[in-house]
């Protein structure tokens, strides 16, 4: 076989498989992260190259190297006295008998025998593991150095909360856009995207190139753009579907409590907010912002809130009150509008426009999600009570950026996102978390994430926290640390049978848009066919 790389010379389940390369194969062609198959006696193994090294048969070669000016000596010694070895971490195995072939690849529980042949994984091998593009699987990119299409089962993907990590500028946003399109086309889930930098809705920026199209431009009938900042949207010539306003009475002390560190409030001030809510009722925020200090004094005394605490709280709330989208009385119920759209299967992108400060993002994302989640919970419980599958709400995926602000250990217990991440899909709501500092995210939340996709990370703590609890962690670490700074990512977890380093598919050229749209059309055509069938049943 032309693709043979070498033979297994030693192996252990824990430490992986050592392969001695055949002499014509150059170590320089072996890159970390590539896929190989090992033909064992009774089963095949799939694994990933996680290390490459050089070996010599005699230690003296190292101390007195031969005269390499002579190509003859070099030719003779290459592959005999000196040789390349690769280290493979086996990931999956498939048995030789018919039954296990039907069963598909299973996690690896044993190792190949001595001198089993090792080959580069072929396209059909990859297809066997990751599946072909179909109505559930979406082509997200190519495995490194391979032409094969890497497909992700999105129906499976949206069943859990997921994370996309990577340093700033490594292509997280592009990757997210691709995944959102995938979810939009291949899964039943709808997306609610809190779009901090207005990247997803209409158009996104592209480093060193013209702006790229957003979701709305590609799938106008399935995406609605909501905005907090109508002016900015108009300036960017974005046609928005709804302008979000938040009334004073929609803000609760819980929202304030997660903003504690961003608003620089003391614990006591947050406590005071709860007390004021209790004594002043739903309109507490309006009263705090509008009443003069004298008018509210009696209430403060009653709740035994200290003057300085109150002033600290008032200062913090003033910051919120000054946000343009926070109005005394909201003209329309935003949550209801969002839910209407979501129920119709239309994905909602909420643009923040000029409100890029983290306090606005935290406030809005948390507040809206909490109420949407409450509605989902209610609908789900109703459906369970009525034992009616059709009453269950559509699965919802909420996309949040800067996730470590919501999910750090300090506030993850308080924000709704902590709850969603932990309770997972019980109520058909899951998260897509985008973040550049995964080490800032609560370990418990991180451990509950189904699939993680990570671009290059170089901070040791970030890498550790992303890979926490993954088998073969140290091997994946070498792969992760060697990803290119752009457009390469490592995916592992629930939705993929084994970790794989890949290059996300192209996004931004006219052809790529066409491919994205056509991938959806075929599934719509199938959907129509299915609908017609169901109609006549």
């Amino acid at each position, binding site marked *: 076989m032309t693709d043979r790389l070498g033979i297994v010379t030693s192996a252990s389940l824990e430490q992986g498989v050592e392969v001695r390369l055949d002499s014509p194969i150059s170590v320089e062609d072996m890159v970390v992260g590539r896929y190989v198959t090992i033909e064992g006696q009774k089963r095949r193994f799939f694994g990933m190259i996680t290390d490459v090294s050089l070996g010599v*048969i005699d230690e*003296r070669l190292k101390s007195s190297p*031969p005269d390499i000016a002579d190509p*003859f000596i070099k030719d*003779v*010694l290459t592959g*005999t*006295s000196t040789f390349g070895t690769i280290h493979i971490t086996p990931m999956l195995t498939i048995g030789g008998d018919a039954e296990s072939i039907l069963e598909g690849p299973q996690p690896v529980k044993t190792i190949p025998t001595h001198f089993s042949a090792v080959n580069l994984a072929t396209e059909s091998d990859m297809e066997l593991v990751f599946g072909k593009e179909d109505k559930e699987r979406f082509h997200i990119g190519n495995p490194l150095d391979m032409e094969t299409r890497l497909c992700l089962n999105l129906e499976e993907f949206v069943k859990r909360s997921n994370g996309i990590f990577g340093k700033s500028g490594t292509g997280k946003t592009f990757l997210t856009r691709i995944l959102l399109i995938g979810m939009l086309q291949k899964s039943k889930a709808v997306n609610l995207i809190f779009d901090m930098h207005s990247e997803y809705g209409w158009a996104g920026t592209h480093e060193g190139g013209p702006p790229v199209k957003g979701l709305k431009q590609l799938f106008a009938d399935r995406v609605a753009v909501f905005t907090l900042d109508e002016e900015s949207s108009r300036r960017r010539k974005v046609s928005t579907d709804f302008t979000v306003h938040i009334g004073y009475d929609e803000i609760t002390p819980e929202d304030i409590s997660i903003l504690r560190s961003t608003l620089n409030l003391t614990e006591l001030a947050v406590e005071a907010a709860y007390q004021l809510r209790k004594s002043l009722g739903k309109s507490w925020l309006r009263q705090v912002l509008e009443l003069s200090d004298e008018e509210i004094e009696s209430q403060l005394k009653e709740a035994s809130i200290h003057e300085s605490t109150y002033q600290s709280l008032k200062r913090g709330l003033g910051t919120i009150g000054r946000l343009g989208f926070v109005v005394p009385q909201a003209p329309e119920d935003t949550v209801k509008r969002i839910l209407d759209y979501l129920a119709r299967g239309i994905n909602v992108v909420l643009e923040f426009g000029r409100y890029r400060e983290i306090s606005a993002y935290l406030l809005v994302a948390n507040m809206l999600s909490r109420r949407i989640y409450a509605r989902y919970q209610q609908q789900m419980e109703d459906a369970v009570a009525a034992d009616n599958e059709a009453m269950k709400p559509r699965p919802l995926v909420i996309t949040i950026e800067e996730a470590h602000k919501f999910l750090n250990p300090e506030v993850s217990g308080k924000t709704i996102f902590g709850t969603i991440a932990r309770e997972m899909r019980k109520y058909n709501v899951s998260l897509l978390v985008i973040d550049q500092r995964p080490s800032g995210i609560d370990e418990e939340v991180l451990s509950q994430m189904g699939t993680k996709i990570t671009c290059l990370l170089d901070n040791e703590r970030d890498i550790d926290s992303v890979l926490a609890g993954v088998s073969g962690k140290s091997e994946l670490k070498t792969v992760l640390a060697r990803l290119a700074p752009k457009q390469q990512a490592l995916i592992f977890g629930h939705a993929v049978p084994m970790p794989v380093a890949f290059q996300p598919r192209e996004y931004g050229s006219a052809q790529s848009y066409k491919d994205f749209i056509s991938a959806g059309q075929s599934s719509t055509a199938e959907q129509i066919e299915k609908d017609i069938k169901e109609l006549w049943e």
Partner: protein
Amino acid sequence: MRTGDIYGIVGNAETTSLEPGRKPIARGKDEATEEAIYESSPQLAKLLRSEFTAVVAGHKDGDKVSHYLPPNPARIHAFVYVCDPEEVRKFSQSFGFLNILINTSLPVPADELIGAALRRMSQAHDDSRAFLVAAGKELAALLSGQYDRLKSILGRLQ
């Protein structure tokens, strides 16, 4: 060389006097050329004898060449021939004989013998360099623990 079905590689050669213990005397002090010595003393050709030793390196079994010792020794008075290039090429298709050469004990160092034999065989091949590289690789495998020896043989291959 070949005798019957047995292939050998010449490992030593000497010319001595017919009578054991009697050493040839230096001649030709007044002659102009070496040939003239034999012309003036024609008896020399009868008094001196050349002998060579060959290391048995393999044998032919039907059409198959095996690189290990034959079941029977060469017969007395069997005729000995020099192998033609075609035979050499056939014999050196694989390198099993190298192991015999490495372990042989002769008056000449085995390393010299291997070097000379391979150099000569390479002339019978169209791509003599590829042949030498392949032979070198085989040697590298056989002499995996003896890097210095390998290095000295490789130095003699060109």
